[in-house]
Every structure is written in C-alpha cells, then in structure tokens.
C-alpha cells in the first residue's frame, strides 16, 4: 500500500511536470517518457487498488509509448489481442493473456496452445480475418512493416509494437503488456523473476578476472550475430567474447577464412526448423579442423527459437549459453 501511495504522489508530480513541459513545448521525447510513466503509474496504481479492472472509465484515453516511440491510445482495457509475431505471442502467454489472444501470426508455435489459435498471416496479413476477430489491441514486432501498421490503424485498430533492442528491453515490454492488459501483477512478477535470473548469471560472468572465450554463435550456416543483435548481447552477458562483435552489420554472413582467423574457442550453432547443422557438418567445413573449438571439441547446439525470439525464453538462452561458455561456473 505504501508503494501505491508513493506512486500516486509521483503521478501527481509527473502530472504537473507534464503540463509544464508541454506548455513550454520542450523536448518531445521527454514528454513521451512522462506520458508513458503516467500511463504505467496510473494503471498499476489503479490495479493495486483494485479499481482498474472493474472501472474502465478510470483509465479512459490511456496513452502509452511503444518501442517505436509511437503513441498508442487505448479507450479501455483490451480484452481481445491479436499478435503479429511469435515473440509477441510468447510474451502475451507468459503474462497470462493466452486466453485473450484471438489471433496470431503464422510462425507462432510456442506455447503449444498458440498453435491452435487463428492464424492471421505474416509478411502478408489477412486484414479481413483480423477485422472479423474484432481485436481491441494488435501487438506487432519489428517484423511488422510501417505499411501494415498504417493499414491496421486506418481500420481503427490500436496497434502497439514491441521491438526490444536488448534483453532488458524484453522485460520492459513484459511490464508494458502487463500494464495495458490489466495483468500488471503477473507481468511484474514475471519481469522480476526473469530479472533475478539474468542477475544470477551476470553475477557469475561479470567477474573482471574471468576468461572470455572467443565464441562463434551461428543461427544459420555461416550467418552470425554482429553488434547490436540479441546474440551479441547474450554472448557478452554469458561471459564470452563474440568473434563478430566488430562486424559491419548486425546479422552478417561470414566465410571460412574469417572464422579460421578469428579462431573461436567455443562454437555454438542453432538447431530447429531451419538448419540441418550437426557437430559433424561443422567439423567437415573446409579448414575448420584448425579451429581451437573443433580441436578441443567445444561445439554445442542450442534451440534456434530461444536465441532468435525476443521473448521471455531468451533468459533460458542466456542461461544455456553461460553454461556452455563457462561450464566451470555452473557446476
């Protein structure tokens, strides 16, 4: 209750701030942040007092800022969700909204229940179907194109984009979904427990004296994670040193010579729907027998979906990678 009161005070303070800021026409980003804060604070406060859910009037016209910096205005707590990305579907289910998801994109396959939900398309959306599903909120991701967003908005739908850039961004998005959906408590708990698990890994892997094995993580034969990608983030957090951390682009294609020159001490490849890579195909690549990881047989596989999808399971990926890169820390 005490925190609740504190939040209320904060809200009042921010409210005043917001007026001052907007009147003086200062930094737009600042205003957006404040609106987001107000939105979240008022919402969670409302939830904590048990009023938010029963009284939609209370949060009428709530506006939040999504990951693209867009204003998303909701007139009531959304009851029917459509997800446009598998990562979003995983977030919605993790926050306990599985029963309220009425449509998902073609690639949503986790959790199991998501497979039975109406598929609304992927690169091409079936707008007619989406309209017939009567969603209150459509949640997209970075694969959702600007054109698709405006197409949906022109039909009067609220569209929110979750496009986190870091693993902590995923936690932010989980909280945001919790707030707009009225499932704040579950979302906060989830975000907190994920955060605690991340911290537990970081606590072990951020020791300055720790060795940082050169790591090559590929999500498709010869395609790896460069700077600014989740894979790069995960390797660093797991206590490794990504051999592609200085690549020119975020998702580069590499070649034999470069990998041999970089001489990774750990090689990790993904398994799943996309590839048929095995330890044997890795060893059989031209010249790879010279690589330290191959000589020492430190070749591992990891589920491609948990590395590639910015959802709650990315924390599983972090834990797996940390155990692969630093087995001595997790005995």
């Amino acid at each position: 209750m005490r925190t609740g009161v504190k939040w209320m005070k904060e809200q009042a303070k921010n409210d005043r701030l917001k007026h001052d800021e907007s009147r003086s026409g200062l930094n737009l980003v600042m205003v957006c942040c404040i609106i987001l804060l107000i939105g979240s604070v008022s919402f969670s406060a409302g939830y904590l007092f048990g009023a938010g859910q029963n009284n939609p009037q209370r949060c009428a016209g709530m506006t939040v800022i999504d990951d693209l910096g867009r204003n998303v205005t909701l007139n009531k707590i959304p009851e029917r969700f459509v997800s446009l990305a598998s990562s979003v579907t995983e977030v919605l289910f993790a926050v306990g909204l599985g029963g309220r998801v009425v449509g998902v994109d073609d690639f949503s396959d986790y959790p199991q229940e998501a497979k039975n939900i109406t598929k609304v398309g992927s690169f091409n959306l079936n707008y007619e179907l989406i309209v017939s599903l009567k969603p209150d909120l459509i949640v997209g991701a970075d694969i959702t194109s600007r054109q698709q967003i405006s197409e949906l908005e022109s039909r009067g739908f609220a569209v929110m984009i979750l496009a986190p850039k870091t693993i902590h961004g995923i936690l932010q998005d989980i909280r945001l979904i919790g707030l707009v959906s009225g499932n704040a408590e579950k979302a906060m708990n989830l975000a907190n427990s994920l955060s605690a698990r991340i911290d537990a890994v970081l606590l072990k892997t951020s020791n300055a004296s720790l060795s940082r094995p050169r790591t090559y993580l590929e999500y498709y034969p010869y395609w790896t994670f460069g700077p600014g990608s989740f894979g790069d983030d995960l390797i660093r957090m797991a206590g490794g040193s990504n051999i592609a951390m200085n690549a020119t682009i975020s998702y580069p294609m590499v070649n034999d010579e470069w990998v041999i020159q970089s001489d990774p001490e750990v090689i990790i490849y993904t398994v799943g729907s996309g590839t048929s890579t095995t330890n044997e195909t890795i060893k059989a690549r031209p010249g790879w027998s010279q690589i330290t990881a191959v000589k020492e047989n430190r070749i591992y596989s990891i589920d491609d979906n948990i590395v590639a999808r910015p959802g709650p399971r990315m924390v599983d990926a972090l834990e797996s990678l940390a155990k692969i890169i630093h087995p001595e820390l997790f005995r």
Partner: protein
Amino acid sequence: MNPLAKRKGVLFSLLILILFATIVISVMIGTTGPLLGAGGEPQMGMNEFFSALLGGDSETYRTIIREVRLPRVLLAGLVGCGLALSGCTMQAIFRNPLADPYLLGISSGGAAGAALSMFTGLKGYEGVTLPLFAFLGGLGAVFLVYILTWTTCRGRIKMEILLLAGVAVGSFFGAVTSFLMYAAGMQFRYLWFWLLGGFTSTSWDKVILAYIPIMIGCVCICIFARELNALLLGEEHAMYLGVNVNTLKRVLICIVSLITGVCVAFSGIIGFVGLIIPHAVRLLLGPDHRVLLPASCIVGGSFLIWADVIARSALASGGVEVPVGIITALFGAPFFLYILIRRRRW
C-alpha cells in the same frame, strides 16, 4: 600470318597470362593477408604465404591457403568459365544477343529445386541435398522445354518455339519458387541469398565435382566452333555448308544445360557473367568462335574470380561476406558499358 590475326594472337596470349596472374594474386588476397588483409590476428606476410602454399609449418596458414582460398578461387574460375562459354554458345545458336545460359529455364528450375530441398527434412545448404535438387531442377526445366518444343515442332527444334517454351516454363518455375519460399517462412531469406550466388564455403570435393563436367563440356563445345561460325550465317546457309543443324542444336543444348546446371548447383544463380562476358570478348576479339569460345572461358573465369575477391574482401574488416551475384552486376555492368563506349561499334 596477317597483322590482324597476329594482334589477336597477342591479345589471346595476354588473356591467358591475365588468368594465371588472376589466380595467383587472388589467392594472396584475403582477411589474413598478405594482400588486402583486413587487420586482426593473425596476419601473414609474403614469405609466410609462399611457405604456406608450398606446405610450410604453420598449419593455420597452410589450411587457409590450400583448403579455403585455393578451392574457392578455382571454383569461381570454373563457374565463370562455364557460364561465359554457355552464354556464348546460346547467343550463337539463338542468334540473339540477349541469350544467356539461363534462357531455357535452368535458373528458375534450379531455384525451384533448391527451394524444394528445404522441405525434404535435410535443410540448410550444407551437404548434398540442395546442390543435387538444384541440379535436377535445372535440368528438369530444360528437359521440359525441350520435350515441349520437340512435340510441338514434330521432331524439329524451332528456335522461336524453344525460346517461348523456355520463357513460359521459366515463369512457371519462378512462381513455384516464390510459393515455396513464401511457405518456408523465415528460411526464405537464406534461400534468397543462396540464389544470389556465392562461393562462401568451397571444399576440394566441390571443385573436383564441378571440374569434370564443366571442363569436358567446355572442350566439347569448343570442338563445334566451326559449326557455330557457320550458324552465324543463318540455319539455311549452315545447312548448305554441310552442318547438321538439328543435331548440332540438340547436342549443344544438352552440353550447355549440363554445364549451367552444375554451375547453378555449386554457386547459385550468378547473373550477368553469361550474358555480358561473351559480348565483351566479341568486342575485343571479333566474332570467330574458334577464338571467341576459349577466350570467353578465360575472361569469364578471371572476371568471376575477381568478383568473388570483391565479395569476400569488400567488407572483410567487419567479417562480412557479400553475395557474389550482387558484385557481378554492380561492377560488371559499368565495366561493360566502358568497353562499349570505348569501342563504339556493335
């Protein structure tokens, strides 16, 4: 020997020299040096390069030179050679400057085969599934075109019908590929890059597998140089000169399809080489196929080796590889236009 023939002889020997220089220099280029090294450790110097080439003691250098770079350079050369020769032959038998090795649907058939291989359970472009499917798809498309023409023309091979059937079958397989890529979902991106062509991972096995059919095919086509010259006069005149035009076309189409099918299987669909190299060589050395065919081989090989050098070293400091199909058109087209303007004749 007249001065013109002498000049052509000199030019031809120069081209052979360029090919050898290309092979030697391109093997020196790479992220680990000695030429155009991209920084980072380790970097080899000239001495280390030659000792590695001759089997020196640094195992890493030896592996990079002999098992990574050399096969890659040779495969690029082989594919360039095969595509340029196929293009040259197609332009001759169709008597059409726009003809290229992919005219009869090999590229779209190969692409459909590659896309289909993603649904076989043996996904990814490692292993034999994808090249095999691409090869069979390409040949399947040509076979279909050929059978269609053969039945339509009652045993004769009419070039207009062949061309139209090629375009139709090509569009059909193009649609099949698009649908399969769409259905493959997230994986379509990698398939798309595979289709753009490249030599990302080349082992000696691939070089040997590609070497035999491409070399045999090239020699066979060069044997028919005189007949192709006769064909330039038109089918009727060629027949008066004693050329069995129908058989000639049949045999050449078979050989060209085989060569191109192998190229597609090992390197994806590399555009531009088969279309432009024969024209460039024709501008330099004239239309005599006895010179034109081998010269196209040499120039095509050298050109694709250099395109691949750019593909693997343009962004090499960031460890990034560019699909070679992008490079061939990006650098090849201006280069060709330059020759065209310089020569001012067609």
